[in-house]
Structures are given as C-alpha cells and as structure tokens.
C-alpha cells in the first residue's frame, strides 16, 4: 500500500479538495469556517477535535447531506461518480430487515439485479466476518456486530471513498480495537480513500496516514499531521514510543485549539 501524504500529491491523484468551505446553519451557527483540505487517493485521513467543533458537519457536507454555505468541494477524476459510502456513529440499521437485507439495501436502491446483488452481499458479509448471521434480525446482534453490518452495507457498493463519523465511538475498548484492525486490513485490501472522524487520539494515530486536527469555534483546520509509520500496524504500535509521540503532538494541538495560548505538555498525557 502506497502512503500518500499531502505534500507529494500531484493534481491527478487527489480524491477530494475543499476550498474555503464554510457552513452556516439556518439558526446562524457557524459550524465551519474556511476549511481548506486536500485528500489524496488512498489516504486514510482522521479528523479529530472536541465534540461540537463541526466534524460531523464537515462529513455531512462532503456527503451532500448538508448544503454548502460558501466555498467549494472538488472531486478527483476517479471520484466524479462520487461513489461514496457513509458510516454513522450508530449502526443505523432497519430493525425490520434481516442482516442480508440491510447489507443489500444500497444495491436494491440502485437497481442492481438480484442475482448479482446476492453475490456481492455474501462477499461483503464475508469480508466483515459475519458469515452465518445473514438471516438474523439486528436486535439479536451485539453492538460490535451491528457495526459490522453497517460496515458491510458501506462496502457492498465498492465505494472509492468512505466517510466514517465516529463509527466505533459507542463500542467498548476491546471491540473497538478489533474493529480498528479489521478496518485497517480492509482499507489496504480495497484501496479506499477514508475520512474518519474520531475523538479518540490513539485510534486516529493507529489508523491513519494523516491526522487533521479541527479546532472550534467555529470549525477550522488547526493542524495536519502525517503519521509516518509503516503498515501493517500491529497491536504493539498502539503502545509504542512513536505512537505516543504522535498522540502527544496531536493533544498539544487540540489544547491549542481550545485555548489560544500555546501549551506544552510536561507529562505523558493519556488521551
């Protein structure tokens, strides 16, 4: 897997460019102000920031779920079709539909023939490790498994870009790190571009090749930090010195974003 960093992207292999993007809600809340961001093809970019700083708004705007107030979003060549998938913080499953029908929903909506749809569903379910649960209703699944269904539904359309809004925020630590590892593997396999929102700094460092720190209010880019650690990353990476250094750097930027005077952490801060 080639790691694309911001600097060595040429015009051609950009997935997404945000230019002076601003978002003002109808009630006057300025959620985003002049966001400039480029995302390279195949990048795994994490967005971290305090809650309420506009991370969700940014993803929803990119997905077209919110109207842009000013500025623009430019898509790369391959991304013109905007084959994007969105994973929400909650699994957002239809409670009346079995796992296989939940996963197959995007295909059904876009009119993919049933026989082909069934194959792709089975493949997606296999990829997230839910074999044997096809005929089960969502309420019979644990939180982690529901999230896997949600993930399967996102990848069934073979998207080129994946927008994830704190997808594992509601899960316990063990399930979260397991899903982290699986996500990383899938990302390498499938060649997605991922925009991943989290408020968990170590998760961001573990997963990404770039971490973008968002400050507020209003939402703006405070720092853009490339994570130069080789892939695949083992569980040990989480507790490594390198990882800790990155976490500390990001934490400092986050503090700075909240509190305008620079702040140097003196002791190891556990996020």
């Amino acid at each position, binding site marked *: 897997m080639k790691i694309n960093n911001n600097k060595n992207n040429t015009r051609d292999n950009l997935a997404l460019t945000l230019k002076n993007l601003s978002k003002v809600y109808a009630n006057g809340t300025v959620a985003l102000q002049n966001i400039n961001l480029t995302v390279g093809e195949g990048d795994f970019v994490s967005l971290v920031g305090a809650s309420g700083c506009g991370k969700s708004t940014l993803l*929803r705007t990119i997905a077209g*779920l919110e109207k842009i107030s000013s500025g623009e979003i430019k898509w790369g060549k391959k991304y013109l079709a905007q084959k994007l998938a969105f994973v929400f913080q909650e699994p*957002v499953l239809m*409670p009346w539909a079995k796992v296989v029908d939940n996963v197959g929903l995007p295909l059904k*909506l*876009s009119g993919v023939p049933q026989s082909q749809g069934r194959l792709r569903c089975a493949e997606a379910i296999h990829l997230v490790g839910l074999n044997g649960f096809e005929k089960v*209703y969502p*309420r019979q699944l644990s939180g982690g498994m529901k999230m896997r269904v949600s993930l399967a539904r996102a990848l069934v*359309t073979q998207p080129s870009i994946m927008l994830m809004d704190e997808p594992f925020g509601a899960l316990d630590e063990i399930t979260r790190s397991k899903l982290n590892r699986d996500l990383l593997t899938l990302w390498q396999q499938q060649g997605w571009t991922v925009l991943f929102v989290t408020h968990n700094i170590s998760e961001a460092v573990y997963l990404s090749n770039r971490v973008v720190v968002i400050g507020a209010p209003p939402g703006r880019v405070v720092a853009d930090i490339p994570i130069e650690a080789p892939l695949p990353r083992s569980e040990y990476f989480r507790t490594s010195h390198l990882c800790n250094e990155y976490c500390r750097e990001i934490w400092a930027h986050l503090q700075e974003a909240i509190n305008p005077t620079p702040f140097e952490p003196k002791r190891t801060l556990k996020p």
Partner: protein
Amino acid sequence: MKKIFSADVIAPIIIGIFALLIWEILVRLMNLPPYILPGPLLVFQTLIEEWHNLFPSLLITLQITLMALMTATFSGLLVAILFAQSKWIERSFFPYAVILQTTPIVAIAPLIILWFKNNIFAALVVCASIVAFFPIVSNTTLGLNSVEANLNNLFQLYKASPWQKLIYLRLPSALPYFLGGLRISGGLALIGAVVAEFVAGTGGSQSGIAYQILMSSYNLEIPRMFAALFLTTLSGVIIFVSLTILSDLLLKNWHESAIKKYN
C-alpha cells in the same frame, strides 16, 4: 403466547367470575325483578333460548363491522400516504379529517341513511367506517413522518426515489403505528355499526344486534337485552384480541411492543 394459562389470562377471569357471583347473590338477596336487573344465570339462560334470533343478528352487525373496518383501513392508508407526500397536503386536509372525527355519528347517520335510501347495509357500513377512519389516518400519518433521521439520511445518500423511500422505509417505519390505530379502529367500527343501527331503527329487512336490543327494551324483555348486550361486548373483545395477535405476529421480529411477549 405460549402459556394460555398465564396470570394475564387467569387473573381477569377470576375477577370476572367473582363479579358475576356477587351480582347473582345481590339480585337474589334484594329480590330484584328481572325487568329491573336480571341475574347473570337468567341472562345466560335467555342467551341460549334466544340464540337462534340473536346470533344471526350479531352476524349481520359483525359483517357491517368488518366491511367498515376494511373500508376504513384501505381509505385511511391511502389518505395517510397522500398526507405524507407533502407537508402542505397534510396541513391543508388534516383539519377536515379531525372535523370528520369530532362530528357525532348519531347526528349525521340519519343523513347518510337518507342518501343511501335503497341500501341500508351500505349506509351502515359508511357510518361505521367514518367512525373507524380517523385513528388509522392519524396514526399512520404519524408513523410515516416518524422515520429515524439517520435512516432518512442513508436513503438520501443512496439517492432513493420518493417511491423507494415510501416502500422500503416509511411504510415499514409506520407499521407499528398503523397497527396501533387498527386496534382502536376495530372497536370503533363495532360501536359505529351498533350506533348506526340504532339510528336506522327498527325498519329495514336486515336487522343487526342493535335492533334486537331496541326490540327487547320496547318489550321490557330485559334479560334478552342483556344477552344481546353481552354478545356485542364479547364481539368487541374478540375483535380487539384478534387484532392484537395480528399486530404481535407482524412485529414479533423487530418491534419492542411485540418482542417482550415472545421472548
């Protein structure tokens, strides 16, 4: 549902038997004449003796009730779906649905019977449908508008057409609400049918259970009146229970209201 003899069933039955017992004892102790208050035993005896008269009448009333419930369900669903197409349609027409509901059926039944001069049966069905119509419309409309925001976003993201949204998202979301409305409407349809029959009076060739109640009261056959009343009430309970079972069956896999009972 597995245990027929659960506390939910046994407790009300015991209370019922107890109440009947006290009723019978009071009637005997106070020596009340049957034309004031008959005891439950006499009522039951009358029910068996008059079965050949009462039961056919009950069937007619039930026929009206079922036709009305089906009409109300069908038209109610259509209207709710129409309301759900745009907030403006709902805003403009919903008040009229409310007016339809708040108008006492006793007041407009004579008019409807007059309009359907040759077809009393149809007139009665229309009256009962009007009564049963509103809970279906209001509940289903509420349900169609209660889609979870994130699911809505998901469908928007995958560029679902309004039709796809209706079939795959809004109607399933509305199902529990609709079934709640249906349970209320089942009882209302029966009440509507009986009230309309009362208004129609003793004329007409086909005479429902209300006709039997009226006739019994004219002739001071109070035990017979009680027997007819009992049949009507029992039918109401059976309608409610059947609709509850239907609702639980349809929702047993996913909706909280039904899950508890099945697991």
